[in-house]
């Protein structure tokens, strides 16, 4: 029986992929995969033919009888036929290092993983030893993909050099930024890549235990990753002899409980230790005193999943793409009101305009793009006037924005930026851990001030007050939540001032 690949990615499920799989079950050998990340075509199914895979999409369960009549299992012609997936323009334009297997392989088959280049990096790492691994990661130029952009090689070296009774590798899979879903896609579509990356990190710094802290809003990713962990243990990828070596490494998945702040590394560690997720003051750095006071590598999921490629293909191959000091690739996640919403892995350096208009195709609503929020709820709102900004940590910072975890949320001309600024403060108030005053109190006061501006009360004085408050939050907060929430607020105020000065029908006060 021909094999047909049907995604089990949560976003594909949200569009009816399970019903499609059920309708196909008695006609073909259905293999569930992750998603390739072309969400306007999901559920996108692929049939294996002698000429390679042929894709169809977007497919609804009701389309299946017609597709079968058209010779689906032989790759026959049909209005939903897309041809070879790798020839789709959205995929041709990408440089898939980290997401090469996502949507292609059976995520729970270690044989499939091996057949597509998996475990080569870990085998090479075990052979090369800790110093050579850290050297390779440093040479690759890889920087933290959670948003901070800290050089991964330096973090690993610091942890390797630190002394402790035991060490930990902690993967931050608390992907709370709106507009981001790369972590989720990888956990559901290629979980062994994360396991391999963490095992390499374990060998590099001398850690025998890893934790993956996954947010509770991702039930499908949690289930997929737990299933992958069980397979990895059974097959000797994890355990007391990793791939037959003397290295011992195991991973445990922990589930968050709906607190955005636990994506901040010290708050995440507090949560893992069983406490309220309140931010710790730094120093000490987690690399010196992290989980349970032990030297700990805390890395974003995409950072860790990028490591196997660096080890297997060499740091030069990774370093060769990129822009300025941002080396390698970034999974850009197009989200919100955008026509071609999906994951686009590419070297740094594309301009925001290329990403939104050329790759994303503008808005889904068909109306003009008015604002783009890059980097999650703490990221700035950029107008089309800033579309020449290259996707690069430094270039975004220079324009008072951030790349963050690579989420790009598009808004059309119906957006009210005063409302978005108010939401930023509301979000900060809801999610503040409460430890420092600028964030805890400032966010509530900020919400009230924006309310007054929106009501037309003493607009000039209140805008000055809001600006001053943002300055205090930016420089006085303990972590990036209170420290970065001024980015969306001030960018809205700077680039869209007209939204804050709506003529009032009735004079206030």
């Amino acid at each position, binding site marked *: 029986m021909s094999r047909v690949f049907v995604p089990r990615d*949560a*976003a594909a*499920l*949200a*569009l009816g992929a399970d019903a499609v799989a059920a309708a196909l079950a008695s006609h073909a050998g259905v293999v569930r995969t992750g998603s390739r990340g072309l*969400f306007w075509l*999901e559920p996108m199914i692929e049939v294996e033919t002698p000429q390679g895979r042929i894709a169809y999409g977007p497919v609804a369960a009701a389309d299946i009888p017609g597709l079968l009549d058209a010779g689906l299992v032989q790759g026959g012609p049909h209005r939903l036929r897309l041809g070879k997936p790798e020839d789709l323009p959205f995929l041709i334009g990408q440089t898939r290092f980290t997401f090469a297997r996502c949507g292609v392989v059976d995520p729970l088959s270690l044989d499939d993983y091996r057949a597509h280049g998996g475990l080569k990096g870990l085998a090479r790492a075990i052979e090369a030893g800790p110093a050579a691994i850290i050297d390779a990661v440093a040479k690759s130029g890889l920087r933290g993909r959670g948003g901070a952009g800290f050089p991964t090689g330096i973090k690993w070296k610091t942890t390797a050099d630190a002394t402790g009774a035991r060490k930990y590798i902690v993967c931050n899979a608390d*992907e*709370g*930024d*709106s*507009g*981001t*879903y790369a*972590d989720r896609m990888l956990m559901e579509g290629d979980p062994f890549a994360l396991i391999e990356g963490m095992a390499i990190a374990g060998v590099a710094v001398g850690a025998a235990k890893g934790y993956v802290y996954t947010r*509770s*809003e*991702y*039930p*499908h*990713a949690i289930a997929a990753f737990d299933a992958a962990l069980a397979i990895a243990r059974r097959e000797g990828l994890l355990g007391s002899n990793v791939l037959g070596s003397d290295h011992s490494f195991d991973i*445990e998945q*922990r*589930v*968050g*409980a*709906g*607190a*955005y702040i636990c994506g901040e590394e010290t708050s995440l560690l507090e*949560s*893992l*230790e*069983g*406490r*309220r*997720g309140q931010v710790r003051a730094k120093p000490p750095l987690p690399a010196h005193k992290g989980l*349970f006071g032990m030297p700990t590598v805390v890395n974003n999921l995409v950072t860790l999943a990028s490591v196997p490629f660096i080890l297997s293909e060499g740091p030069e191959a990774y370093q060769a793409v990129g822009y300025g000091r941002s080396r390698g690739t970034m999974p850009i*996640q*197009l*989200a*919100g*009101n955008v026509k071609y*919403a*999906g*994951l686009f892995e590419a070297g740094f350096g594309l301009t925001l305009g290329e990403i939104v208009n050329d790759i994303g195709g503008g808005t*889904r*609503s068909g109306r003009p793009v008015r604002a783009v*929020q890059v980097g999650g*709820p703490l990221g700035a709102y950029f107008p089309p006037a800033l579309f020449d900004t290259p996707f690069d940590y430094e270039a975004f910072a220079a324009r008072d924005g951030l790349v963050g975890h690579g*989420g790009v*949320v*598009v*808004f*059309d001309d119906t*957006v009210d930026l005063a409302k*978005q600024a108010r*939401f930023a403060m509301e979000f900060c108030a*809801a*999610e503040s*851990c409460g430890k420092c005053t600028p964030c805890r109190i400032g966010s509530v006061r900020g919400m009230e001030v924006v309310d007054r501006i929106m009501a037309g009360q003493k607009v000039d004085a209140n805008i000055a007050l809001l600006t001053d408050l943002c300055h205090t939050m930016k420089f006085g907060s303990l972590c990036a939540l209170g420290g970065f929430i001024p980015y969306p607020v001030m960018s809205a105020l700077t680039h869209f001032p007209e939204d804050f000065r709506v003529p009032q029908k009735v004079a206030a006060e």
Partner: protein
Amino acid sequence: MAAYEPWNEQRAGEIIAAELGREGAALPILHALQAAFGHVPRDAVPMVATALNLTRAEVHGIVSFYHEFREHAPGRHLLHVCRAEACQSLGADAMHTKLRQKLGVDWHGTTADGAVTVEPVFCLGLCAVGPAALLDGRPLGRLDDERLQAELEAAS
């Protein structure tokens, strides 16, 4: 739709004991209690405190810090709707206002007939297919008023 167990002290003790061997066991314990009882029952708090050598106040502090932990059981169906920016850009706010008016509930509220509890979440990672929601853990994408209503009716 989830069927929850009625409160049972012995059962709660077993659940706590099963997770106690883990490092930093508080969250795994609270998740396991909520999975069984639909919420973290008040009577379980002193038991967790004793098991973890914490005060009751500390355990209450943990339960109340995390949005996910509930102090009351939810309705027969649990609807998590995404309130974050990507869904906002596709009109989620207006859809949520209409939904809550129609159901007669505020955020975190349960309908009078006990059918549905509506919880806001900030992002489900379904930002490419918004507006998004989870209904009893099942992902829903590209929602509008009609589709959301139809899903709720089909579930009940």
